[in-house]
């Protein structure tokens, strides 16, 4: 176990998997210079055949990943900002997500699409989207939203070894977040969530970047006499429904926190699952804390009111625990 930054954990995962398997190749926008630091040093180590800068041509990049995977490689395709995935969406939605299924399972498509998502840095509406809801709806790609350096490393290594298209989202601006990362060849199974903090009064199911806020909210709630359990699904496809339902069965209350826009967000999907399968254990309505249905505004003042805040989570937790707090 060693203390590592998020970006270091991701970088190590890439190094280790490329070292382990020479069929792993990586290409994308500015991966040689590495804008975020995640691909730093890979070119020097693995050379220009396996590490390639691409033109800003998302359609051919995302589709070439499919063709290379079908032909036996394990491409990691770096899209830089999540919003740029919209430009490459045909190849992801129509090709990567469907080619195995519509050809009757003839092939495996081991692809990782990497992208940075999320707001909070005044990057504006076209560099701040959180896109996992879109990919959750495709039905043929796995979706990972890791919240800690350890989870990021373990899940990215698993994603590269997975025989399916996997979307791996990094959180913008959080590359410096530090955490303990296990040593050795550390992988985590995709589809297994994690209880980041145990509690008894309310389950706060937080996705990706929102886990950090949920942990802060849980601390404040503790001081207010509310014991919050923080549930981190870690991957949205597949989704660890069992872990979420078990937590809700224990607490009887659920808040889902998502940095995606509210309508059809992961929070909406998880709320629906709790309503369908965990209704009997609920003592209060399931609540969603998410971004309003707008493109992220530029001004920090406006951006702050759109992004979920610790105070929002604390307020909603108090609301759902209203009776308990009153007593």
């Amino acid at each position, binding site marked *: 176990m060693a203390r590592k930054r998020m970006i270091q954990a991701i970088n190590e995962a890439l190094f280790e998997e490329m070292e382990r398997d020479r069929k792993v*190749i990586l290409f994308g926008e500015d991966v040689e210079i590495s804008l975020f630091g995640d691909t730093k040093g890979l070119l020097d180590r693995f050379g220009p*055949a*396996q590490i*390639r800068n*691409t*033109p800003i*041509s998302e*359609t*051919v*990049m*995302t*589709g*070439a*990943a*499919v*063709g*290379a*995977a*079908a*032909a*036996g*490689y394990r*491409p990691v395709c770096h899209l830089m900002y999540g919003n740029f995935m919209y430009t490459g969406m*045909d*190849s992801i939605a*129509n*090709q990567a997500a469907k*080619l*195995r*299924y*519509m*050809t*009757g*399972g*003839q*092939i*495996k*498509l081991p692809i990782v699409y990497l992208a940075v998502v999320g707001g909070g840095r005044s990057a504006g509406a076209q560099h701040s989207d959180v896109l996992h809801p879109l990919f959750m709806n495709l*039905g*043929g790609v*796995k979706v990972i939203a890791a919240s800690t350096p350890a989870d990021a490393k373990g899940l990215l290594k698993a994603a590269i070894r997975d*025989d*399916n298209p996997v979307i791996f989202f990094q959180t913008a601006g959080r590359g410096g977040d530090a955490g303990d990362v296990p040593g050795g060849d550390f992988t985590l199974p995709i589809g297994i969530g994690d209880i980041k903090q145990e509690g008894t009064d309310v389950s706060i199911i937080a996705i990706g970047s929102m886990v950090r806020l949920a942990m802060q909210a849980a601390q404040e709630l503790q001081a207010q006499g509310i014991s919050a359990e923080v549930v981190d699904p870690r991957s949205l496809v597949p989704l660890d429904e069992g872990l979420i339902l078990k937590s809700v069965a224990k607490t009887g209350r659920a808040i889902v926190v998502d940095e995606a826009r509210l309508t059809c967000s992961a929070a909406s999907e998880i709320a629906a699952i709790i309503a369908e399968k965990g209704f009997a254990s609920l003592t209060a309505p399931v609540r969603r804390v998410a971004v309003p249905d707008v493109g992220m505004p530029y001004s920090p003042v406006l951006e702050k009111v759109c992004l979920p805040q610790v105070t929002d989570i604390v307020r909603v937790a108090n609301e759902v625990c209203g009776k308990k707090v009153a007593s």
Partner: protein
Amino acid sequence: MESPLASAEGSDASLTAIYRRMMLIRKMEERLGEIQKTGALPGPVHLYIGQEAVAAGFCAHLTDRDWIASTHRGHGHFLAKGGDPKLMAAELYGRVGGICKGKGGSMHVADFSKGIIGANGIVGGGISLTTGAALAAQLDGQGDVAVAFFGDGAANQGVMSEALNLGALWQLPLILVCENNGFSEFSPTDTVTAGSIAERAQPYGVPSLQIDGNDIKAVLQAADEAISRARAGNGPTLIEARTYRLRGHVEYEVTFLSKGYREQAEVDLWIGRDPITRTQGYLVEQGITPAEIESIETEIIAEVDAAFEFAENSAWPDTSAALEDIFA
């Protein structure tokens, strides 16, 4: 590894083998057109009739290690690359014995074991996939190549420019074969396409040429040059094969189109340039007798009969299959 066609290249046997492949495509598709009228096919079919020389000519130079990707008009490429007509027919019937277990249908026939990435329902969709297969071939270093077949409609998708740029930068073993068949769905090419498609390669420094796609000899020569260039590591080529879609965009279109979009005289003109008839002419020049040509047709018809008999006798998929093959 050599394909049966490539190994006999240049000989009389070669052109006969290529002709057989063209005839197989033609007869399979004529039968599909008839069956479509009976309602036996669950989904739409887009026929390749009139364009057979392009698929057969290029695939004659390819082995199972080489990759191709195709279009919504993809039966011809599937069969030309060695796809099994029985498995294709069963796929179009939506049966479990189909090449994709009935999950893909006409627009998704694929056989990865034969290097057929498959037909594709998205215009231009196969171009990026082929670019990736070309990257894999380059990394493998075995001299394999990837051929993208697409139409003039796809030439107007941005991905063709993206692939030309990337293919040129990385010197990928990529052959872009644009089959200009005169129509983007229901729009005549000249109403939606500016300038020359072949010339679109020039700014990228990619060699390109326009050929008569209904002349098997012209196709074979252009394919040989482009594929040899790619195998030697000298990068991509764009070929615009001028041909003509003798059938509609989709079978049965007359039942829903409010008006026609071409003159019969134009169709008749191109019937006079039928690639099958022209290839027969070459065979006769090589000394193949009309009786031998006729016996080829008879054999092919028997093969087509067997393919559709197989399809009709193949079972429907078990309903549990709907939720299988999503993830590996």
